[in-house]
């Protein structure tokens, strides 16, 4: 039985600029949202903006999370710009 992947989602400007709304990423023990963000930024190109200092918010399983929040197999991790509803 293979371990379920992490689902990574992007919204709004990030979704558009990365040209992706969902990715499956293999989990790794001890992985945090911050690790995941840097790992994605290392893809280069538009992905670099994830690690550029521009604010990126993160939610894990639809709850706001922090850069040191651990992520596990099967989790849904979402990265998005600061929210602008209302």
């Amino acid at each position, binding site marked *: 039985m293979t371990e379920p992947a992490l689902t990574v*989602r992007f*919204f*709004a*400007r990030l*979704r558009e600029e990365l040209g992706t709304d969902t990715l499956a990423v293999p989990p790794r023990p001890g992985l945090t*949202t*911050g690790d995941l*963000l*840097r790992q994605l*930024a290392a893809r280069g190109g538009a992905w670099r903006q*994830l*690690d*550029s*200092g*521009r*604010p*990126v*918010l*993160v*939610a894990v399983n*639809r*709850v*706001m*999370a*922090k*850069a040191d*929040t651990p992520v596990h197999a099967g989790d849904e991790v*979402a*990265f*998005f*710009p*600061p*929210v*602008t*509803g*209302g």
Partner: protein
Amino acid sequence: MISVQAEDFDQAQEYRALRDSDTGTGAIVTFTGLVRDQGDRAGVTGLYLEHYPGMTEQVIQGLVAEAARRWNIQRARVIHRVGHLTLSDQIVFVGVCSAHREDAFAACAFLMDALKTSAPFWKKEITDQGEHWVEQKTSDIERAEAWAPVTPPAAPDPASGSGS
């Protein structure tokens, strides 16, 4: 009650529902947000509103529960539209009823301030010149933080990857 929907809403119907809730109701405060011609840039003709289905509803439920803990309110109603909207369209409705006006005003203003900074919605403005994602306003963050003293700390750290 909370709705995140593409369809328009009827302010009159929402007001009636709030009014009919309780003979102890003394105050009803409603807020409605509309698409205006001047946003981050001038000449706005429409908006596109994206959200994070599932998370949005959960965040708003949490905000309404917090409002009900902090103020003596009888009922709160939140409607937020998503998708494509045009000039003067209704975007958002927050209605609160209470025995007293101070609770109704405070809960309604709190819900709007909190929605602006913690519910996962993103606005793209459409103008004659093109379209652009709206930037979060420092003033909105400050207004939301001004409610903080009584709020349990729930504000997310940006998971910015910039070093340690």
